């Protein structure tokens, strides 16, 4: 199973990438968050929320594969 992970704004700046594909099996969002914080230590300095398939989810939400996951820093529209 694969996840598309998308990074935006200051999150993209911290990860130095805009998008990547990761291989996973049944994974709670909390675990993904911890994995990404290990992979990109600068993420720890950024306030971000996680959206799955364009909706916010809580950390217990279980990713089963094929989802689009987005790491979203604070909004600045308007």
């Amino acid at each position, binding site marked *: 199973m694969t996840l598309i992970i998308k990074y935006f704004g200051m999150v993209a700046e911290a990860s130095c990438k805009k998008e990547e594909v990761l291989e996973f099996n049944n994974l709670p969002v909390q675990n993904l968050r911890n994995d990404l914080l290990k992979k990109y230590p600068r993420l720890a300095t950024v306030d971000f929320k996680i959206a799955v398939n364009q909706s916010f989810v809580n950390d217990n939400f279980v990713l089963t594969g094929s989802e689009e996951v987005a790491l979203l820093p604070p909004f600045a529209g*308007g």
Partner: protein
Amino acid sequence: MKDKKIKNSLVEGPITPEKIGTSIAHHQVKTNIGAHDIFLGQVRADEIDGKIVTAIDYSAYDEMANKVFDEIREAAFEKFDLTCGHIYHSKGIVKAGEICLFVFTSSKHRQMAFDATRFITEEIKIKVPVFGKEIFEDDSFQWKTNQ
């Protein structure tokens, strides 16, 4: 995941006064409208730590942003008795003095249009995944954050 019904509310670059004038003109055939209320967000040349903002570079999670713009517009139609409701937000570089947000509602009577434009504008600020880099004269930048 694509839904053909979702409009694209994102505009490349600044929203021009001509576009706003044209949009107003398109509503003159709708003779059941008595009131329009238009909100425009304009980029300010703020001074931050002695440096002047010259532009904001907007980026967005396009699909989610358009989905949320659509939900906000739907919610406005549910709450208020509107004839029309339009939202446009810039992506990319918008210089100080240029317009980055255009919210336009129309109704038979003024209270609905006033309330709807305000509601939509407040919702956009908190719910739409649009990100902005404030760019200074010396090409340094900082990330803008609402509230």
